[in-house]
Protein backbone atom coordinates (compact mmCIF):
# COMPACT_ATOMS: atom_id res chain seq x y z
CA UNK A 1 0.00 0.00 0.00
CA UNK A 2 1.23 3.43 -0.92
CA UNK A 3 0.57 6.97 0.24
CA UNK A 4 -0.07 9.98 -1.94
CA UNK A 5 -1.00 13.64 -1.70
CA UNK A 6 -4.11 15.29 -3.07
CA UNK A 7 -3.81 18.88 -4.26
CA UNK A 8 -7.00 20.89 -4.14
CA UNK A 9 -5.30 24.17 -5.02
CA UNK A 10 -7.83 26.42 -3.36
CA UNK A 11 -7.38 29.82 -1.86
CA UNK A 12 -9.43 31.65 0.69
CA UNK A 13 -6.97 34.47 1.18
CA UNK A 14 -7.85 37.56 -0.86
CA UNK A 15 -4.25 38.77 -0.78
CA UNK A 16 -2.86 35.50 -2.15
CA UNK A 17 -2.08 35.64 -5.84
CA UNK A 18 -2.79 32.76 -8.21
CA UNK A 19 0.94 32.43 -8.96
CA UNK A 20 1.66 31.89 -5.26
CA UNK A 21 -1.03 29.21 -4.95
CA UNK A 22 0.47 27.23 -7.83
CA UNK A 23 4.06 27.78 -6.62
CA UNK A 24 3.09 26.24 -3.26
CA UNK A 25 1.46 23.30 -5.02
CA UNK A 26 4.67 22.73 -6.98
CA UNK A 27 6.76 22.91 -3.80
CA UNK A 28 4.47 20.45 -1.99
CA UNK A 29 4.66 18.09 -4.95
CA UNK A 30 8.46 18.30 -5.00
CA UNK A 31 8.56 17.59 -1.24
CA UNK A 32 6.18 14.65 -1.71
CA UNK A 33 8.57 13.23 -4.32
CA UNK A 34 11.49 13.54 -1.87
CA UNK A 35 9.53 12.02 1.03
CA UNK A 36 8.59 8.95 -0.98
CA UNK A 37 4.91 9.60 -1.66
CA UNK A 38 3.87 7.46 -4.64
CA UNK A 39 1.34 9.72 -6.36
CA UNK A 40 0.42 13.41 -6.33
CA UNK A 41 -3.15 13.98 -7.45
CA UNK A 42 -4.49 17.25 -8.84
CA UNK A 43 -8.13 18.33 -8.76
CA UNK A 44 -10.22 20.16 -11.34
CA UNK A 45 -12.93 22.67 -10.49
CA UNK A 46 -14.26 25.78 -12.12
CA UNK A 47 -15.45 29.21 -11.15
CA UNK A 48 -14.71 29.02 -7.41
CA UNK A 49 -11.97 29.68 -4.89
CA UNK A 50 -12.29 26.10 -3.67
CA UNK A 51 -9.90 25.01 -6.42
CA UNK A 52 -8.10 27.39 -8.76
CA UNK A 53 -7.01 24.59 -11.07
CA UNK A 54 -9.20 24.29 -14.18
CA UNK A 55 -6.76 21.94 -15.92
CA UNK A 56 -4.96 19.28 -13.88
CA UNK A 57 -3.07 18.10 -16.98
CA UNK A 58 -1.49 21.55 -17.25
CA UNK A 59 -0.23 21.39 -13.63
CA UNK A 60 0.98 17.84 -14.24
CA UNK A 61 2.98 18.97 -17.26
CA UNK A 62 4.73 21.50 -15.00
CA UNK A 63 5.24 19.16 -12.03
CA UNK A 64 6.64 16.46 -14.32
CA UNK A 65 9.61 18.69 -15.01
CA UNK A 66 10.44 19.35 -11.33
CA UNK A 67 10.02 15.81 -9.95
CA UNK A 68 11.74 12.48 -10.57
CA UNK A 69 9.80 9.46 -9.37
CA UNK A 70 6.39 10.50 -8.09
CA UNK A 71 3.45 9.63 -10.31
CA UNK A 72 1.11 12.45 -11.26
CA UNK A 73 -2.63 11.97 -11.32
CA UNK A 74 -5.70 13.89 -12.40
CA UNK A 75 -8.47 13.74 -9.81
CA UNK A 76 -10.25 14.22 -11.96
CA UNK A 77 -10.70 15.44 -15.51
CA UNK A 78 -14.44 16.13 -15.79
CA UNK A 79 -15.00 14.41 -19.11
CA UNK A 80 -18.22 16.06 -20.36
CA UNK A 81 -16.52 19.45 -20.08
CA UNK A 82 -13.83 18.45 -22.61
CA UNK A 83 -13.68 17.64 -26.29
CA UNK A 84 -12.65 13.97 -26.59
CA UNK A 85 -10.33 14.29 -29.61
CA UNK A 86 -8.40 17.11 -27.94
CA UNK A 87 -8.28 15.47 -24.51
CA UNK A 88 -6.93 12.19 -25.93
CA UNK A 89 -3.96 14.07 -27.40
CA UNK A 90 -3.41 16.05 -24.18
CA UNK A 91 -3.45 12.87 -22.07
CA UNK A 92 -0.81 11.34 -24.35
CA UNK A 93 1.23 14.53 -24.14
CA UNK A 94 1.15 14.60 -20.31
CA UNK A 95 2.18 10.94 -20.15
CA UNK A 96 5.02 11.57 -22.58
CA UNK A 97 6.23 14.70 -20.73
CA UNK A 98 6.27 12.78 -17.43
CA UNK A 99 7.90 9.74 -19.03
CA UNK A 100 5.00 7.45 -18.21
CA UNK A 101 4.08 8.78 -14.77
CA UNK A 102 0.51 9.86 -15.56
CA UNK A 103 -2.42 8.37 -13.64
CA UNK A 104 -5.66 9.41 -15.33
CA UNK A 105 -8.59 9.98 -12.99
CA UNK A 106 -11.85 10.68 -14.81
CA UNK A 107 -15.28 11.73 -13.60
CA UNK A 108 -18.73 12.58 -14.89
CA UNK A 109 -19.02 15.90 -13.04
CA UNK A 110 -21.88 16.88 -10.80
CA UNK A 111 -21.95 20.65 -10.41
CA UNK A 112 -24.77 22.34 -12.37
CA UNK A 113 -22.99 25.66 -11.98
CA UNK A 114 -19.98 24.36 -13.92
CA UNK A 115 -22.01 22.61 -16.62
CA UNK A 116 -24.18 25.69 -17.28
CA UNK A 117 -21.10 27.81 -17.88
CA UNK A 118 -19.60 25.28 -20.30
CA UNK A 119 -22.92 25.00 -22.14
CA UNK A 120 -23.29 21.29 -21.35
CA UNK A 121 -26.57 19.75 -20.20
CA UNK A 122 -25.80 18.02 -16.90
CA UNK A 123 -28.68 15.60 -17.50
CA UNK A 124 -26.50 13.84 -20.08
CA UNK A 125 -23.34 13.65 -17.97
CA UNK A 126 -23.38 9.89 -17.31
CA UNK A 127 -24.18 8.97 -20.93
CA UNK A 128 -21.53 11.39 -22.19
CA UNK A 129 -18.95 9.96 -19.79
CA UNK A 130 -19.68 6.41 -20.89
CA UNK A 131 -19.25 7.38 -24.56
CA UNK A 132 -16.15 9.47 -23.75
CA UNK A 133 -14.53 6.44 -22.06
CA UNK A 134 -15.26 4.30 -25.13
CA UNK A 135 -13.58 6.94 -27.30
CA UNK A 136 -10.47 7.09 -25.06
CA UNK A 137 -10.22 3.30 -25.06
CA UNK A 138 -10.30 3.30 -28.87
CA UNK A 139 -8.01 6.30 -29.32
CA UNK A 140 -5.19 4.64 -27.37
CA UNK A 141 -5.63 1.05 -28.52
CA UNK A 142 -6.09 1.63 -32.27
CA UNK A 143 -4.01 3.49 -34.84
CA UNK A 144 -7.20 4.75 -36.43
CA UNK A 145 -10.56 4.91 -34.76
CA UNK A 146 -13.99 6.33 -35.38
CA UNK A 147 -16.99 6.73 -33.16
CA UNK A 148 -20.68 7.09 -33.76
CA UNK A 149 -22.48 7.71 -30.49
CA UNK A 150 -25.51 9.66 -29.34
CA UNK A 151 -23.43 12.54 -28.00
CA UNK A 152 -20.16 12.22 -29.93
CA UNK A 153 -19.49 11.47 -33.58
CA UNK A 154 -15.89 11.29 -34.78
CA UNK A 155 -14.87 10.29 -38.32
CA UNK A 156 -11.82 8.09 -38.92
CA UNK A 157 -9.11 9.69 -36.78
CA UNK A 158 -5.51 9.14 -35.74
CA UNK A 159 -4.07 10.72 -32.57
CA UNK A 160 -0.37 11.15 -33.35
CA UNK A 161 0.75 11.84 -29.76
CA UNK A 162 0.93 8.49 -27.98
CA UNK A 163 1.25 7.76 -24.26
CA UNK A 164 4.40 6.07 -22.91
CA UNK A 165 2.33 3.69 -20.79
CA UNK A 166 0.33 1.03 -22.57
CA UNK A 167 -2.20 1.54 -21.21
CA UNK A 168 -2.29 4.66 -19.01
CA UNK A 169 -3.96 3.55 -15.73
CA UNK A 170 -7.45 5.05 -15.59
CA UNK A 171 -9.35 5.71 -12.35
CA UNK A 172 -13.03 6.56 -12.01
CA UNK A 173 -14.13 8.86 -9.23
CA UNK A 174 -17.57 8.52 -7.79
CA UNK A 175 -19.63 7.19 -4.95
CA UNK A 176 -22.48 5.44 -6.75
CA UNK A 177 -22.73 1.80 -7.74
CA UNK A 178 -23.39 2.87 -11.36
CA UNK A 179 -20.02 4.66 -11.59
CA UNK A 180 -18.15 1.78 -9.97
CA UNK A 181 -19.84 -0.71 -12.32
CA UNK A 182 -18.75 1.41 -15.28
CA UNK A 183 -15.20 1.33 -13.89
CA UNK A 184 -15.32 -2.46 -13.61
CA UNK A 185 -16.61 -2.84 -17.20
CA UNK A 186 -13.88 -0.65 -18.68
CA UNK A 187 -11.06 -2.23 -16.67
CA UNK A 188 -10.59 1.01 -14.75
CA UNK A 189 -9.64 1.52 -11.11
CA UNK A 190 -11.60 3.30 -8.39
CA UNK A 191 -11.06 6.62 -6.66
CA UNK A 192 -13.19 6.97 -3.58
CA UNK A 193 -13.51 9.50 -0.82
CA UNK A 194 -15.29 9.41 2.50
CA UNK A 195 -15.53 13.18 2.09
CA UNK A 196 -15.99 14.54 5.60
CA UNK A 197 -17.39 11.30 7.03
CA UNK A 198 -15.37 8.88 9.13
CA UNK A 199 -14.41 5.20 8.92
CA UNK A 200 -18.09 4.11 8.93
CA UNK A 201 -18.80 6.01 5.71
CA UNK A 202 -15.61 4.57 4.18
CA UNK A 203 -16.80 1.06 5.07
CA UNK A 204 -20.12 1.77 3.28
CA UNK A 205 -18.19 2.95 0.21
CA UNK A 206 -16.15 -0.25 0.27
CA UNK A 207 -19.35 -2.34 0.25
CA UNK A 208 -20.68 -0.42 -2.75
CA UNK A 209 -17.41 -0.94 -4.66
CA UNK A 210 -17.35 -4.64 -3.75
CA UNK A 211 -20.97 -5.12 -4.86
CA UNK A 212 -20.38 -3.24 -8.13
CA UNK A 213 -17.36 -5.36 -9.10
CA UNK A 214 -19.18 -8.53 -8.10
CA UNK A 215 -22.22 -7.54 -10.20
CA UNK A 216 -19.96 -7.08 -13.23
CA UNK A 217 -18.10 -10.34 -12.56
CA UNK A 218 -14.77 -8.51 -12.24
CA UNK A 219 -12.24 -9.40 -9.50
CA UNK A 220 -12.19 -6.78 -6.74
CA UNK A 221 -8.40 -6.43 -6.87
CA UNK A 222 -8.83 -4.85 -10.30
CA UNK A 223 -10.48 -1.90 -8.52
CA UNK A 224 -7.08 -1.01 -7.06
CA UNK A 225 -9.01 1.02 -4.48
CA UNK A 226 -7.68 4.52 -3.86
CA UNK A 227 -9.05 6.51 -0.96
CA UNK A 228 -8.71 10.25 -0.53
CA UNK A 229 -8.81 11.74 2.99
CA UNK A 230 -8.38 15.13 4.56
CA UNK A 231 -5.45 15.12 7.00
CA UNK A 232 -3.91 17.61 9.38
CA UNK A 233 -1.32 16.57 11.94
CA UNK A 234 -1.12 18.95 14.86
CA UNK A 235 -0.92 18.97 18.65
CA UNK A 236 -3.23 22.00 18.76
CA UNK A 237 -6.99 21.51 19.01
CA UNK A 238 -7.52 25.03 17.75
CA UNK A 239 -5.44 24.35 14.60
CA UNK A 240 -7.35 21.12 14.10
CA UNK A 241 -10.73 22.84 14.28
CA UNK A 242 -9.56 25.50 11.86
CA UNK A 243 -8.58 22.76 9.41
CA UNK A 244 -11.99 21.10 9.92
CA UNK A 245 -13.66 24.37 8.98
CA UNK A 246 -11.57 24.54 5.79
CA UNK A 247 -12.54 20.96 4.91
CA UNK A 248 -16.30 21.69 4.98
CA UNK A 249 -18.00 20.69 1.74
CA UNK A 250 -20.01 23.20 -0.16
CA UNK A 251 -21.97 21.78 -3.12
CA UNK A 252 -25.40 21.18 -1.53
CA UNK A 253 -25.89 24.91 -1.03
CA UNK A 254 -24.42 25.88 -4.39
CA UNK A 255 -27.37 27.03 -6.45
CA UNK A 256 -26.72 29.05 -9.59
CA UNK A 257 -28.92 31.91 -8.46
CA UNK A 258 -27.38 32.06 -4.99
CA UNK A 259 -23.79 31.37 -6.00
CA UNK A 260 -22.85 34.96 -6.60
CA UNK A 261 -23.45 35.69 -2.93
CA UNK A 262 -22.68 32.30 -1.38
CA UNK A 263 -19.52 30.32 -1.44
CA UNK A 264 -18.68 28.02 -4.30
CA UNK A 265 -16.81 24.79 -4.25
CA UNK A 266 -17.07 21.28 -2.93
CA UNK A 267 -15.43 18.56 -0.82
CA UNK A 268 -12.70 16.20 -1.95
CA UNK A 269 -12.10 16.36 -5.64
Amino acid at each position, binding site marked *: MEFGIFNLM*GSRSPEKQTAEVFAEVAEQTRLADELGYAIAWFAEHHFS*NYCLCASPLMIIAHCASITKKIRLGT*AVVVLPLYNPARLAAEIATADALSNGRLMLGVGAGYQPYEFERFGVDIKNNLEMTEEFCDILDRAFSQDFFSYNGKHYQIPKTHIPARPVQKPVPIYVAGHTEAMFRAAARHGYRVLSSGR*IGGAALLAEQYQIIRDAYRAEGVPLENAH*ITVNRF*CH*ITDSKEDGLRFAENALPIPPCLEPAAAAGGHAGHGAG
Partner: protein
Amino acid sequence: MQGTVLVDVPCPDEPSLEQIHKDLLIGDVETVAEKLVAEIRATHPVHMCFSFKVGATPHKAAMRSMELMMTEVRPRVERALGPLARRAAE
Protein backbone atom coordinates in the same frame (compact mmCIF):
# COMPACT_ATOMS: atom_id res chain seq x y z
CA MET B 1 -17.16 39.56 -2.14
CA GLN B 2 -14.04 40.11 -0.08
CA GLY B 3 -11.41 41.08 -2.61
CA THR B 4 -11.48 38.16 -5.05
CA VAL B 5 -12.89 35.70 -2.49
CA LEU B 6 -16.59 34.96 -2.12
CA VAL B 7 -17.89 35.32 1.43
CA ASP B 8 -18.77 32.05 3.18
CA VAL B 9 -22.40 31.38 4.04
CA PRO B 10 -23.24 28.41 6.33
CA CYS B 11 -25.14 25.51 4.74
CA PRO B 12 -28.23 24.02 6.33
CA ASP B 13 -27.50 20.75 8.20
CA GLU B 14 -23.79 21.45 8.27
CA PRO B 15 -22.02 18.99 10.63
CA SER B 16 -20.35 20.55 13.66
CA LEU B 17 -16.64 21.31 13.50
CA GLU B 18 -16.17 19.01 16.50
CA GLN B 19 -17.75 16.15 14.54
CA ILE B 20 -15.58 16.81 11.48
CA HIS B 21 -12.51 17.06 13.72
CA LYS B 22 -13.39 13.63 15.09
CA ASP B 23 -14.19 11.98 11.72
CA LEU B 24 -11.22 13.22 9.72
CA LEU B 25 -7.51 12.44 10.11
CA ILE B 26 -6.96 15.41 12.39
CA GLY B 27 -4.90 15.37 15.58
CA ASP B 28 -1.46 14.54 16.90
CA VAL B 29 0.61 11.74 15.37
CA GLU B 30 -0.80 9.09 17.75
CA THR B 31 -4.42 10.07 17.07
CA VAL B 32 -3.97 10.26 13.29
CA ALA B 33 -2.20 6.87 13.27
CA GLU B 34 -5.10 5.27 15.21
CA LYS B 35 -7.74 6.78 12.91
CA LEU B 36 -5.75 5.77 9.82
CA VAL B 37 -5.47 2.16 10.99
CA ALA B 38 -9.27 2.05 11.39
CA GLU B 39 -9.80 3.54 7.93
CA ILE B 40 -7.40 1.10 6.27
CA ARG B 41 -9.24 -1.78 7.95
CA ALA B 42 -12.58 -0.38 6.73
CA THR B 43 -11.65 0.20 3.10
CA HIS B 44 -8.82 -2.18 2.12
CA PRO B 45 -7.18 0.45 -0.07
CA VAL B 46 -4.22 -0.10 -2.35
CA HIS B 47 -3.47 3.60 -2.23
CA MET B 48 -4.38 6.34 0.24
CA CYS B 49 -3.89 9.97 -0.59
CA PHE B 50 -4.21 12.87 1.78
CA SER B 51 -5.47 16.40 1.29
CA PHE B 52 -3.07 18.28 3.56
CA LYS B 53 -3.88 21.68 2.16
CA VAL B 54 -7.47 22.87 1.90
CA GLY B 55 -8.83 26.39 1.85
CA ALA B 56 -6.75 28.66 4.05
CA THR B 57 -4.50 25.96 5.55
CA PRO B 58 -1.04 27.57 5.70
CA HIS B 59 1.47 26.17 3.20
CA LYS B 60 4.01 25.51 5.99
CA ALA B 61 1.45 23.58 8.08
CA ALA B 62 0.63 21.39 5.06
CA MET B 63 4.34 20.70 4.46
CA ARG B 64 4.75 19.79 8.14
CA SER B 65 1.80 17.36 8.02
CA MET B 66 3.30 15.79 4.89
CA GLU B 67 6.59 15.15 6.69
CA LEU B 68 4.99 13.88 9.92
CA MET B 69 2.80 11.46 7.95
CA MET B 70 5.86 9.74 6.50
CA THR B 71 8.26 10.02 9.46
CA GLU B 72 5.93 9.52 12.46
CA VAL B 73 2.50 8.24 11.41
CA ARG B 74 3.48 5.64 8.82
CA PRO B 75 5.82 3.71 11.20
CA ARG B 76 3.03 3.60 13.82
CA VAL B 77 0.53 2.32 11.24
CA GLU B 78 3.00 -0.37 10.21
CA ARG B 79 3.46 -1.42 13.84
CA ALA B 80 -0.32 -2.04 13.97
CA LEU B 81 -0.87 -3.55 10.52
CA GLY B 82 2.48 -4.90 9.38
CA PRO B 83 4.50 -3.61 6.42
CA LEU B 84 2.30 -1.48 4.17
CA ALA B 85 4.28 -2.49 1.07
CA ARG B 86 3.14 -6.07 1.63
CA ARG B 87 -0.51 -5.03 1.85
CA ALA B 88 -0.33 -3.75 -1.72
CA ALA B 89 0.45 -7.23 -2.94
CA GLU B 90 -2.53 -8.83 -1.20
